[in-house]
């Protein structure tokens, strides 16, 4: 590590020299590094190697699998691996389950992203106006929801909505029918009855876990807005609604853009929650992530079909990410 850091000192290193008999060697190496301006590359190398080997190379491999017939017979060696062109993609595009799971993923993001942003914004605005003690109380509560590990939170929400002994079914079954519909809520199974109840439950869970991040970020943004701006607008008789849209929102737009794109990516992606609650045993409750996982790992595994799906999935996300990256660059984040 010391050698990698060495170039930091620049030309002075050679004047100062080092202890021990290997000084010349070190100096010569240092001179070589300096002459070719290698220092930044040497510093980057370990991190870049890690990212390339663990994150980039697998993506390339997945792309390769998706054009092959890599499955159980190929793993056992019974049949050779062959190139099959776009066969996996056409199988996928003709699979109704693919479209069903894609629809669930898209609808989920379309519903949950705005809800999370709205709840987070309302709480953020509220935190900005609450007294100190109350503000700490509310933000601590939000922080605890945020801190709950997704696996814990999923198991917990499953329990709250559980058909045997769950609190929600208990409460709903005691409410008048005109309010909650005539469904028999006692022992209603949210997780396995269908995609709508299952993803309603998952939506509540995801909003509960992700609004705190939005709220705290919006709050941090609000603190950067000079108080005089809001004051001036209020003296002019603008309503809070108007102040928000005319003053606050335009100033926080860069933050919102990042939050929006991050939320879209996160909510489109969800696997942990859907695996624990909707689970791989309910075909009609697959989102795209579950569908990929099922194709790749449920016996008999087909890494090629899974790969084709993963590639489609990655491309969709890269398109969204492209917007995210542009948002960062526009803000001069690379300087």
């Amino acid at each position, binding site marked *: 590590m010391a050698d990698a850091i060495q170039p930091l000192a620049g030309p002075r290193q050679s004047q100062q020299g080092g202890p021990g008999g290997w000084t010349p060697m070190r100096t010569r190496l240092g001179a070589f590094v300096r002459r070719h301006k290698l220092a930044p590359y040497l510093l980057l190398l370990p991190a870049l190697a890690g990212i390339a080997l663990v994150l980039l190379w697998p993506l390339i491999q997945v792309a390769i699998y998706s054009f092959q017939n890599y499955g159980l017979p190929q793993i056992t060696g019974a049949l050779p691996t062959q190139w099959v062109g776009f066969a996996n993609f056409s199988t996928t595009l003709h699979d109704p389950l693919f479209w069903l799971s894609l629809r669930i993923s898209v609808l989920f993001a379309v519903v949950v992203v705005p809800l999370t942003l709205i709840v987070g914004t309302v709480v953020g605005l509220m935190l900005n106006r609450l007294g100190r003690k109350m*503000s700490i109380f509310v933000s601590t509560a939000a922080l605890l929801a945020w801190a709950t590990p997704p696996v814990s939170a999923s198991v917990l929400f499953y329990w709250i909505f559980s058909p045997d002994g769950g609190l929600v079914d208990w409460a709903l079954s005691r409410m008048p029918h005109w309010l909650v519909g005539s469904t028999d809520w006692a022992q209603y199974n949210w997780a396995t009855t269908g995609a709508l109840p299952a993803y309603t439950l998952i939506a509540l869970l995801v909003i509960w876990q992700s609004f705190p991040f939005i709220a705290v970020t919006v709050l941090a943004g609000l603190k950067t807005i000079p108080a005089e701006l809001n004051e001036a607008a209020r003296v002019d008789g603008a309503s809070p609604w108007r102040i928000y849209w005319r003053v606050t929102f335009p100033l926080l737009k860069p933050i919102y853009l990042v939050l929006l794109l991050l939320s879209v990516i996160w909510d489109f992606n969800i696997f942990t929650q859907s695996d624990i609650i909707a689970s791989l045993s309910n075909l009609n409750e697959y989102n795209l992530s579950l569908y990929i996982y099922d194709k790749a790992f449920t016996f008999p595994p087909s890494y090629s079909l899974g790969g084709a799906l993963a590639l489609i999935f990655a491309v969709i*996300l890269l398109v969204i990410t492209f917007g995210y990256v542009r948002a960062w660059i526009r803000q001069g984040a690379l300087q």
Partner: protein
Amino acid sequence: MTSADVRTSAGTAPAAVSPRSRNKAATRARSAKRAKAVGLNGFGLLIALATLFPIFWMISTAFKPSQEIYSLNPDLLPAHPMLGNFRQVISGNVTGGIGPVWLFFRNSLAVALATVLISSLLALLAAVAVARFRFRLRSTFLILLLIVQMIPGQALIIALFLDFKALNLLDTLTGLIIVYSAQALPVTIWMLRNFVATVPKDLEEAAAIDGASAPKIFWRILFPLVAPGLVATSIFAFITAYNEYIVALTFLGQTHSDYTLPIYLTYFFGEHGAEWGPIMAASTMYTIPAMIFFLLVRRRLVGGLVAGALKA
């Protein structure tokens, strides 16, 4: 909240204009202000309680005996609180349990701490490179980080599974540590870059002129100033590893003694006949350390993102 605000602005404005009605208007303004404060605080309290409720319910269930948990009329608080569920989870002697919970704590901590060490070290070196040097491909590298950070685990998991199988690293904690460290890098490099960039270069140059060696400059000048950033990135890496699900689920197969906490908990949860009391006790034990961690560092949590987003 909205209507209360409108009322205040309407109430205070005339008070300044007409001295005759000042008293009356002031009273009105005061009561409107109080109503607004009450409304706002009430709303805040409601949000806080609703947010806390699931956590409260988890802990409450963990302390309830079985007959109270499945009671037809559940109570908010355990009528006869007991530690039995925790005892079962700790001893591992419970339906669906696959060993004493400490074993899985140890696995999770080992993985998370190793991830913190490796990712912090690699990220710090890379952060110094991008913050201190101008070189070709610098922007490319930064953009690459933003992109790879967004590649979801589900897209890579197939290839990772096959690669790590070939390397004989499935069913080992080492395999997890390698993947988690790499996954944490993009964000930690971005975060650390901002911290390194804020350290004035003059400091290093002055030290260099005084004859300090490069390692000395690093440890004596750069490191102490970047330390708060390292705390932030360590927390990020720790939480990432402590919470991770899909890779652990795929890599850790039949060897139960290698399970990390989330996999232990889902296995427990999925076992037929497992009871909610012990499951919630295990879940509570898994959750509390993460919460303490978040509370300790609450002020650093959003710094990175907001600083970046507002830099324009």
